[in-house]
Every structure is written in C-alpha cells, then in structure tokens.
C-alpha cells in the first residue's frame, strides 16, 4: 500500500516538492485502460512502488531532455545497423528497428517468481521432447494424443530414437508471457525451434543504457551480459575436441532476423555460417574455410530443423547441410536446439501440459498457460461447438492446415459468416488440426508517444539457457509493444515496437564499471577461420568496387575533355570512349557519339553490363550475403553508392551534372575504402577484399597504359592513374613518356602503380595461410612473384605493350589461382528426385 503513497511521501521539502510536481506532470495524462492491468499505475492512479524511482528520475530530466535521450538511443540503433526484415514485404526491405524507449520495470520479487515458473516449464518441455523422440510413453499412456505428435510438421521422424549426444534437446528456450487482468502472468507460447529476440534485446539494452547511463546505474538494473557469458561458455564446453569451434547456423541474409544471427555470432565470438559453408565427412562436420576444412562440433541453430538436411529431411531445402542428421546420429555434432525440438512450439501441446506437469514433475505448473482445447478429441469438439464465437481459433501446429491455416489465431465471432462456416466444416472434418483458446487480454505498460506517456498492451519474451544441468534465465527480456490500445493481439510483424525489460536488483549489481558500454563483453574472435564463401564474396566486392572506380575515372577524364574547347581533345575523346566501350560500360558502335552521351550511358543502367549501376549493384549484392563482415558504416557506403548511381541523371547533356555525379560516387568509393581499411578484421577477410581491389586496379592500370602511353595522351594517363600531383612534384615539366610510364607502372612508392599492386598482392598472399608444399611458393604466389619480377627487372623505356599485356594476363590468372587455392568449395548441392511412373 505504500505504492499509492509514493507521490505524497516525496513532498517533504522544496526540492522533493519540485520533484513531485515533475512526476505528477509526467503522469498527468496517463489513464490505464478499463479492466486491464497496468504495469506502472495501480487502480487508484498512483505509480506502483517499483516504478517510482525510475519515473522520478525520468521526470527530473524534463520533456526536452527525455526526447533528446530517446533520440540518442534511436541514433545508436541506427548507427549499429540494427534492422529486421519483413517476409511479406515484396521488396524484402530492411526495416529500421522500432524501439519503444520506456523499459518495462520488473521488481526483484516478481522476477524470482517468473524465473522459477519458467525453469519448471523448461524442464517439462525437455521431458516431452525426450519422450517424443525416445520411448513414446506419454502417448502410450494416453497423456498425449498420438495425432498431436504424428501430425506435428516439426516431428522429425529420422531423429526418432536418436538421443542428443549432449543430453539435452533444449539449450536455448524462449517463452512469451503476458499478464491478465487479475495480475497473473500467463504463458502465451513456447519458442524452441530457433528462438529469436535475445540479440535484439541486447541491442535494446545497450542503446537504452547508453542513452540513460545515470538512471540505469542508479536503479541497479540486473545486467544481461553474465547470462550470455554463461551460455557462451556452456556451448564452448560442449565441443570435446581441441580444434572444434562453435558455429551459428543461419538460413542467410534473407531471413527476417539475420541481423540478430550475425550480431549474436559476433557478440558470442562464434563463427556465422550458412549451410553451404558446412560439409559432412565421415568423421564429422566441417566448415569450408580458406585454410581448409575446420571442425565444427557445436552448432547454434537458427535454421528450422526440417531445412537442416536435404538428404534425410526436407529434400527441397537449399539451406541445409547434406548428411547432418547422420552426423547427429553418429554423435559427431551437438546442435542447439536439437533437430526436432521445434515440435514443442505446437499450440496443441498447451492443452495437455497442465495435466502433464503433475505426472512428469509431480507439481502443477507454477505459471499457467493460456487455456487451450485440442479439437481432435470428440468431447472437446462438442464442448467448444457453442463457444466458438468467444474463443480464439488457431492451428494446433506452427504450420497451418490447408483450407483455414489460422497460423495467427482468430476470434470466432469476428469471422464473416462464409469464412466461419468453412472453418466450422474444417474443424468438423479434421479437428486434429485445430485448437480453441481462451481469448486473452494483455496488460499495458507506458510508451512515450507525442511527448507523453501512454498505456500500450505488450507481451514479454523471456530467455532461458541451459548451463550444466540447470537453467539460467536472462534477467531482462524482449518486450513487444502494440501500436494501438487493442489489448488482444500483439505482433511485431504488424508494426509494433519493442522495448527493453529492466529487472531490478535488491543487492548491488556486478559489472557496473563497464560503462559506457555496460553490456559489452570482450571475447576473442576465432582466428583464421574465414569461410570460403565469405572470402569469395569479399574478393568480388573488392573487384567490383575497384572496377567502378576505374570506370568513374574514365568518365571524368572524358567529361574533362569535352569542356575544353580545344580541338586537339577530339581524338582523345574517341579513345576514351573506345575504352569505355571495350569495358562494356558504354556503346561501342557509335564512334562519333557525343562524349556526354557516352558518359551518360556509362552512368545509367542500360544494357551495358559494365555501367556504374550494374557494378555498384554487383558490389552491393556480393556484400549483402556477407553483411556481418562489414561495419554498418561500410555497408551503408555501399548502399549509398548503389543508390547514388541508380538515381536518374537530369535530362540533356548537362556536363556539370555528370561530373558532379562522378565526384560524388568517387567520394563514396573513397570513404568505403577508408572504412573497410579501418574497421575490418585484418584476419583474412580484409585481405581478400584487398586482393580483389589490387588485382582489379592492376588490370585497369595496365589497360590505361596500353591505351594512353603515347605522347598525345600522357596527360590522360596521369589523370586516370590519379598521379598528376606526384608527377608535377617530381618533374616540374610537361609529361614525357618514360617518366610517366615509370611512375604509373614501375614506381613501387606510387600507390596507383602496377608494381605497387603486385607488391601488396605478394604481401597479402604471404600473410594468408599457406596451402602449398612446404618451402615452395603457392600457385598464386608464383604468378604474383613472376609478374612482379618482370617489372623489377625492366627499364622504363623498355616497357612495351607485350610486357603490359603479359602483366595484365598474369593478374587475371591470379584471380583464378586464388579461387582454386582458397575458394574451391563453391560446388553446389543439387538435391534430386528420381522420376517414376
């Protein structure tokens, strides 16, 4: 009851009087919804006790400062590149992360209750999974209908009789809970397939604790980092061999929560892999890396179980690893959660868990789940027949049934008559596919809208990790906040926002000294494990970016010559145009076309494969599949480059618009290079990007030299090689062939020269893991060394077309040799079906 008095008890001196006024102002317009439990405000309109310290501190900031803090949190999320993807969105767009800034405050006492209830539930679910894939006693004894297991699309039959080698089906478990009007927490659903949200919760936490460090510290909010540390240590411990590593298995960048996969992998220090990065051999599961096959003994699975092995599970999966099930059977790999654990998500199970608990655990469920009836039983069907209008009807499984999928659940009474009739018939035919559930209302929590607090319904996702034989619960959670005030349904996909959950501690919290990044844990990334697929894409990002730069330089050289009224420029214009044509960046068949038109073609998305939009899109595409390897800024530079060159140019010749476009694009390319250099791990990944760039730059420079190394065009050559300033500083005279060629081809100190590229290539190759015979150069090294030596042993005036052509070809061969030496695993798996009749 002290809760309700909080406001008044503050009013004992002037300062608190002031504070009281601020708090009253903050809460002035806040009206809980009728008949709905509000987390922050009690029925008498006073803030609940465990919210008061937070609210007072928030109120003390004042509206302006609150808004400033909240936008700082948004900015942090944007800068970290947090996004999610919406499946239904035809454009497959990434969405900015919608943070509702006010956290859900949970008291220490209430947390203890929740925790105990969820740990109990985890134990029950583990028992159900272990029985379904083991002895099947629960079914035989009539405690679970056979149809509810057999009809579950996530009941993976090849795994029946295969006990997980680590002893547990569940290692990471998420539960959605909501609070009913009577103030009790209810379990809304279980997430066991590949639970998402923990990584987003972590990002929310970092963003918010940075925006409000003072409040966060003063409130003694439980840290979530120790939970992740414990989980990380546990998974690491499960690998038994010295050389094993933990991998996060993701379906790839098109998945809606790919950001989280990449984020968690980085945070936990695990290797992010897709199915095609892994291969099953006789003695286990391996990652294909640039240094050969590396053992993967533990997989944190974010790929649905059924898609994990095209050989024994869903043959149409292009995301899985052929043979993975056999590796599990042979106990060569630990998968968390086990293949098949998704079966526990079925809504139909909710109908039986309350009765199973006393049998399995010798105790009732401490936290009840939503009252559920499985309509496969004739008695349940009859009992529910008259109640359908007030009930939520839903699929009994995670996948919907054919005619009336009801994946999300609908209130019977809200259906139009035709649909209602169809559903009633479907239930009559195949009640086994459906459940009826009590329609639940959720409680509300405050959200900051239009400069004030408003009540919003929410559900809370909590996370549990198996550690040793017990469970740890993440003290915090992932809150999904509804947009409107309809307290019946919440779905992030439908545009809701998310919030952090702050679990208050009664004692001091550990780790407080890590501010301003309280949740950052420092973990060493596995060294030298670069999946071949990632390396291959990095190499190509480098090549596309560099080719884009070279093309931009050509276009600029072209435009520069059209603005000079000098007639002598005409032949040069033709030669530059010809080179653009030879690069498929512009038309080859209009020798007398106006330079501006050719420049325009190179900058527009036409049929020309080498045009800027094509190159930028190719670079972005290659980078998109390995986004986790780039910093958010570097990624944004690529996106910006693609967007910039895609934008239509103003009509007409408009030389100035063209050169503006070129300069802008070149600036973005330069910023990408800087960001990649600054922020990418030097352990392999960056080297492949660099190799791609150096090879492409070498090739481009060779082509420039072949075209423009004559007296009439030396200025163009210097310009293309971006070496005018160096030349002027060195020679203070008009361009002459020998010194220009020396500078552009041989000078090891000119970062644009061919020799410099070869030099760098040799350095990178030497730093990569050696796959050749001991004491010998690898094939790529041999090619690079031969080409570099040829340049080191020639005089500038002896450089001719033959040598340049030879160097150019060596660089092209080099690209292939690198692919053969490091990236050769790009074999593709094609599941096949045999025909018959």
């Amino acid at each position, binding site marked *: 009851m002290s809760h309700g008095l909080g406001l008044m008890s503050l009013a004992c001196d002037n300062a608190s009087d002031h504070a009281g006024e601020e708090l009253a102002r903050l809460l002035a317009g806040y009206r809980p919804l009728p008949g709905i439990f509000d987390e922050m405000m009690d029925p008498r309109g006073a803030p609940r006790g465990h919210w008061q310290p937070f609210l007072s501190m928030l109120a003390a900031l004042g509206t302006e400062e609150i808004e400033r803090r909240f936008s700082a949190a948004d900015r942090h999320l944007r800068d970290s590149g947090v996004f999610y993807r919406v499946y239904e969105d035809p454009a497959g767009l990434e969405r900015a992360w919608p943070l509702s800034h006010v956290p859900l405050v949970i008291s220490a006492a209430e947390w203890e209750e929740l925790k105990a209830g969820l740990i109990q539930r985890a134990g029950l679910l583990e028992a159900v999974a272990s029985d379904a894939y083991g002895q099947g006693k629960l079914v035989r004894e009539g405690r679970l209908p056979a149809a509810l297991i057999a009809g579950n699309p996530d009941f993976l039959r090849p795994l029946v009789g295969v006990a997980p080698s680590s002893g547990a089906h569940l290692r990471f478990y998420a539960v959605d809970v909501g609070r009913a009007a009577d103030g009790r927490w209810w379990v809304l659903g279980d997430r066991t397939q590949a639970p998402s949200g923990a990584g987003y919760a972590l990002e929310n936490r970092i963003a918010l604790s940075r925006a409000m460090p003072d409040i966060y510290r003063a409130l003694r909010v439980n840290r979530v980092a120790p939970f992740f540390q414990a989980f990380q240590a546990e998974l690491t411990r499960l690998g038994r061999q010295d050389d094993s590593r933990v991998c996060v298995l993701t379906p790839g960048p098109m998945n809606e929560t790919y950001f989280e996969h990449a984020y968690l992998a980085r945070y936990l220090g695990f290797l992010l892999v897709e199915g095609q990065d892994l291969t099953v051999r006789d003695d286990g599961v391996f990652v294909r890396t640039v240094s050969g096959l590396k053992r993967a003994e533990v997989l944190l699975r974010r790929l649905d179980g059924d898609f994990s092995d095209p*050989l024994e599970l869903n043959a149409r999966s292009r995301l899985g690893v052929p043979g993975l099930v056999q590796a599990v059977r042979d106990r060569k790999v630990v998968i968390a959660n086990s293949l098949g654990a998704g079966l526990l998500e079925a809504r139909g199970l909710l109908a039986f868990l309350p009765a199973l608990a006393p049998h399995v655990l010798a105790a009732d469920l401490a936290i009840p789940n939503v009252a559920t009836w499985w309509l496969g039983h004739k008695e349940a069907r009859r009992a529910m027949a008259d109640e359908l209008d007030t009930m939520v009807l839903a699929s009994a499984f995670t996948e919907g049934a054919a005619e009336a999928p009801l994946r999300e659940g609908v209130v019977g009474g809200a259906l139009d008559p035709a649909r209602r009739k169809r559903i009633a018939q479907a239930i009559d035919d195949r009640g086994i596919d459906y459940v009826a559930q009590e329609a639940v209302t959720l409680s509300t929590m405050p959200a900051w809208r239009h400069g004030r607090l408003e009540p919003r319904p929410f559900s809370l996702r909590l996370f549990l990790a198996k550690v040793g034989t017990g469970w740890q619960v993440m003290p915090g959670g992932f809150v999904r906040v509804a947009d409107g005030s309809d307290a019946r349904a919440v779905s992030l996909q439908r545009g809701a926002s998310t919030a952090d959950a702050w679990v208050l501690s009664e004692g001091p919290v550990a780790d407080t000294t890590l501010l301003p990044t309280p949740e950052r844990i420092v973990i060493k990334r596995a060294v030298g494990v670069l999946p071949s697929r990632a390396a291959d894409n990095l190499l190509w990002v480098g090549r596309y970016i560099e080719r884009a730069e070279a093309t931009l330089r050509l276009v600029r050289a072209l435009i520069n010559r059209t603005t000079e009224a000098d007639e002598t420029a005409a032949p040069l214009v033709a030669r530059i145009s010809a080179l653009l044509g030879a690069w498929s960046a512009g038309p080859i068949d209009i020798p007398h076309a106006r330079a501006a038109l050719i420049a325009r073609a190179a900058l527009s998305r036409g049929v020309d494969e080498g045009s800027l939009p094509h190159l930028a899109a190719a670079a972005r595409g290659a980078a998109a599949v390995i986004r986790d390897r780039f910093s958010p800024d570097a990624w944004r530079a690529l996106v910006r480059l693609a967007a910039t060159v895609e934008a239509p140019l103003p009509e007409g010749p408009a030389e100035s618009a063209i050169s503006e476009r070129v300069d802008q694009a070149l600036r973005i390319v330069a910023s990408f290079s800087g960001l990649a250099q600054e922020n990418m791990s030097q352990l392999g990944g960056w080297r492949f990007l660099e190799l791609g760039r150096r090879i492409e730059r070498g090739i481009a420079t060779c082509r420039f030299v072949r075209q423009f190394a004559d007296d009439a065009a030396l200025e163009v050559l210097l310009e293309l090689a971006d070496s005018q300033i160096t030349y002027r500083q060195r020679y203070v005279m008009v361009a002459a062939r020998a010194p220009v060629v020396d500078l552009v081809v041989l000078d090891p100190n000119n970062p644009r020269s061919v020799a410099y590229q070869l030099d760098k290539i040799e350095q990178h190759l030497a730093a990569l893991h050696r796959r050749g015979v001991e004491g010998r150069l690898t094939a790529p090294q041999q090619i690079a060394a031969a080409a570099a030596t040829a340049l080191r042993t020639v005089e500038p005036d002896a450089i001719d077309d033959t040598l340049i052509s030879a160097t150019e070809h060596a660089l092209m061969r080099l690209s292939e040799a690198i692919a053969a030496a490091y990236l050769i695993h790009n074999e593709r798996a094609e599941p096949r079906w045999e025909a*018959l009749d």
Partner: protein
Amino acid sequence: MIYDVRQTTAYTYASKVAYAHHVLRLTPIDRIGQRVQASALDIVPAPVARREGRDFFGNRLTRIDLAEPHDRMTIRMAARIVVEPVVAPPPETTPAWEEVRDEVFAATDIGATSPAHFLFASRQVSLDPEIRDYARESFAPGWPILAGATDLMRRIKQDFIYEVGATTVSTTPPMSFALRRGVCQDFAHIMIAGLRGIGLPAAYVSGYLRTVPGNDAPILHGADAMHAWVLVWCGEEAGWQGLDPTNALIAGDEHVVVAIGRDYADVAPIDGVVFASGGQRLDVSVSVTPVG
C-alpha cells in the same frame, strides 16, 4: 507367387560429380504377406561408405557416399520374393468411416505402423479442399470404410486419364486433379489427399507390378517401372488394405511392396545430393517375372 524382380537405375551426368551422398530405398523387405528370399544391391562406382539401415517406417535404407569422380552411376537391384494371395475383408463388414476416424484421432499408438502418422498433410500431399469434396462423395454417412475407399478408387480410375508425361515427379495433387490426368504417383496422391481430407488415414506404397499378368488379363499400367498405390486404414480389425487407383484393383499377389510412407517423398527410391554442375539423365528398367 514367387517373383524375380530386377531394377536397373542409371544416372548420367553432364559433368563429373566430385562427391555425392545418396539414400536408396530400393530393397524390398519381409512384410505381412511378402517374404524376401534373397536380395542384392550393386552400385557402380563403388561407394566409399555404405550403411544399411531402416527409416522410421521400417523401410530398408541404404546410405552411400561416392567420393570417386564419376559421370555415371548405375544401381542394380535384384530380389526373389514370395507374395501370398491377399484376402480382403468383405467391405460391408468394415466399420463406418466416421467411427474409424474418431478412433484414430484418439489413437495412443505412435509406433511406425500407427495410422496416426498417415492422417496429415505431408511433403507432397497438401490437403486440398476440392479433392476433399470429391472424395466425400464416396463416403455417405455411416458407410463402411472399405466400401467408401473402394468406390473412391474406382471413381479415380474412371474419371482420370493415365498419361505418361502429363505430369512430373513434382506435380502436386491439386495440379493433377485439375488436369484430370497423370500416372500412378498422381493417382495415389489424389486418393490419399481425399481420404486424409475427411480425416481418414492413408499411406503411399512404392513397389512393383508383375510385368506380364497371368490369365491373359490386360497389361496393367505401371508395370514397366516402379509402381505406386495406396494403403487405407480400415480400423483395428481389418487394418491396412491396399488399393491401386491406377488399375482399380485391390492390391494382391501381383503387387510387390518396396517401401511405405506418407507420400512419394518418404519413399523416393533414390534421394541424393551431388556436388556438380549441369544436368543429368535418368534411365530406369524394371522386370518382375514369376518363377513359380
């Protein structure tokens, strides 16, 4: 009847296959009414790893890995099999279909032969409302289940045209239903979709038909390759009954069972993942010869 069964399956690849995993479901096993006296499975090139096993439904599986680069894989299966004549119960003695349905919905058996596994949509058999409504016409209220299922089988034979090439191995039941044509796989899938649609368990059988029928009977469809038909659950007493909608026949001693599953995807004779680029060609030849 005793049969000698031979099947040769040959894949020819457009480019060398460096590595391949395959799962083979080609070897018949002993079943009720069927005894395998001898069988052999020969694979060229020789696999580096070969394991024999059973799938969930008890079918024989051979898992092989090929590590030798190859552009052709040939699999030869040979078996001698004794098949007993089948005595199907008189349809009118089987229970009402609704009774069977409610009994299965409440089943407490999750073992491999439990009808509960065969009630639901599966990889290649979605539960299409139109097929369900088509099937419902054969099941008047209170009708004995085998009578209804036999009627459905005859209607499929009558209403659909057997046409090789009209469909492919990945044609869905709604597609072949709309076309009103297909081959044994399509007819089996349609019949299964119809039965499951009204809550009745139905399984998919892959196997062989006697190549030249006895007693001057007409040549049956599906004898020159692997064949497919349907098992219908007729209640605890009558159990599973085999019905062949392609030929409107109760499956008897001219049908040799290889594998049983929920649909074709469960029993595909050869599943595989090859590491190669380019296409492939498949040649299959089958003979089922009575030897006594």
